[in-house]
């Protein structure tokens, strides 16, 4: 690991100023469960690390208003077990509680979570590793395409990269049209979480749309978008403590026995948190039946492209969506 300058600001403004001075070699560190991990693998080589965990204002969790507001530094475990979130917003609580382990959720922040990097084994093979990776070393090639691609994405892939976007929380946030608040060298701004992510295209090294030196300060969720009739359903190789092979975030709004609106997003199968509008359209105005749920699941994967070892994700993913829809609907009081 390369050495670095460690800075520990007390305010968001100090952090952003330090980032502007540090330039491209500067990184914020929150829990460090992605950044420090990748520094140990020499994949991240920052010259300056800004520890933002001392910024008290960014730890706050506010659930009283029409909008839930989570400070970027709130630990995953704190948001997952917040009384209001766990009672009224299952899709959010479950996406956090089913991610990583309690040890890691105590460390990791809900803001840093949005910026975690792929677990593609070829990417994590490390700097100077024997396998090429366009994300790690742009232009070097992709060893996953035609390689051991069981865990790779089937949606949003390109000729340059099929790496899965690994997070659970971002999938839930995309489903509920959450937003993020940012502070950068040019002041504050906000945008939908959905707009944070890029498709790999020809430049898979560019994963996020943050401007240089921009910091996430908070995540906002419109309360009514993440109601009781919701779930985050996650299928893994083992029952707990594993990344998703396929997952679905689902929120239903019912009118009588018909679906007024369904929100569906997919994880574990795509190169970015993936909204599934085709499934949502198929469900709108309908009565939910097991057959319809499965049809909607298949609709979500209509444009999917499998590699050599991951074709199972098309059917697994469709059934994950179907099960999630049934679970959410059963939460009707």
């Amino acid at each position, binding site marked *: 690991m390369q050495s670095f300058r460690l800075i520990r600001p007390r305010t968001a403004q100090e952090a952003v100023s330090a980032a502007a001075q540090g330039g491209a070699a500067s990184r914020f560190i929150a829990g460090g469960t992605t950044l420090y991990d990748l520094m140990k693998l020499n994949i991240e080589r920052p010259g300056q690390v800004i520890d933002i965990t001392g910024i008290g204002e960014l730890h706050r969790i506010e659930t009283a208003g029409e909008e839930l507001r989570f400070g970027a530094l709130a630990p995953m475990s704190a948001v997952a077990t917040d009384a209001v979130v766990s009672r009224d917003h299952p899709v959010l609580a479950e996406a956090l509680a089913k991610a990583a382990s309690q040890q890691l959720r105590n460390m990791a922040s809900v803001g840093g979570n949005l910026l975690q990097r792929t677990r593609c084994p070829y990417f994590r093979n490390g700097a100077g590793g024997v396998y090429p990776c366009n994300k790690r070393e742009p232009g070097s090639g992709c060893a996953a395409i035609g390689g051991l691609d069981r865990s790779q994405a089937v949606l949003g892939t390109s000729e340059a990269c099929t790496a899965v976007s690994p997070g659970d929380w971002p999938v839930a946030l995309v489903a509920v049209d959450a937003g993020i608040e940012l502070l950068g060298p040019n002041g504050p701004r906000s945008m939908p979480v959905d707009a944070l992510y890029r498709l790999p295209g020809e430049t898979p090294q560019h994963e996020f749309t943050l401007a240089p030196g921009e910091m996430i300060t908070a995540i906002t969720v419109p309360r009514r978008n993440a109601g009781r009739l919701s779930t985050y359903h996650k299928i893994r190789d083992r029952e707990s*403590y594993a990344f998703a092979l396929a997952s679905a975030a689902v929120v239903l709004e019912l009118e009588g026995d018909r679906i007024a609106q369904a929100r569906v997003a997919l994880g574990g199968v795509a190169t970015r948190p993936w909204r599934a509008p085709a499934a949502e359209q198929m469900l709108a105005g309908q009565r939910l039946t097991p057959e319809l749920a499965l049809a909607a699941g298949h609709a979500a994967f209509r444009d999917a492209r499998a590699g050599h070892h991951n074709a199972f994700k098309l059917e697994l993913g469709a059934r994950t969506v179907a099960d999630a829809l049934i679970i959410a609907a059963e939460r009707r009081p």
Partner: protein
Amino acid sequence: MSRNDDISAKGDPEDRNRASPQGDSTDPLSLNRRATLGIGAAMASSALSVVPLRAQSPQVTALPEGTTAIRTLVNGRPVAVTIDVRTSLLDLLRETLALTGAKKGCDHGQCGACTVHLDGRRVASCLTLAAKADGREVLTIEGLSHGDALHPMQQAFIDHDALQCGYCTPGQIMAAVACVAEGNATSRERIREYMSGSICRCGAYVGIVAAIEDAASRMGRG
């Protein structure tokens, strides 16, 4: 920069963990003693460098490049060291403070062998920058017992044969104590879910779950 400041800053540590006076040569955490034990070796063998703060002249404020000074309470004892900024909390504990209870399994947050408590919450010390322990309290397996009296969780692990090789055990026990304190030891299913971050290569899980159920009732929680 007196090390006694650390105690007052953090409030009273529990009596059983009361810090020994500065320079007590029987205290394994005493910088004096550590200096004779292995700092030279640590410096020679790794990127880690340790500069006892007391060895610095008071006028010197600038630290060597790539280092940072931290003050923390480890098992109730104040520790003030200058460390390489890259050092993990796990390496600080094991290599610098000679507290080898926390184990290095994967060094990437995946196995739980390095689990310790930071300000009362369980964390993977391998993915925690040691610099983040500054101003905070660390509890390791070495600080869990009251002298010779084992913590109920330690005793339960013995009673239920909750180990084979024992490599994962300190991490399991620290995770388990936190699991009970969090209120996550209320059923076997919940224990399994909330202990999933601690892998046991020997597969002693049946005993581990039984031990936690047992200790939880003794600890009056869960």
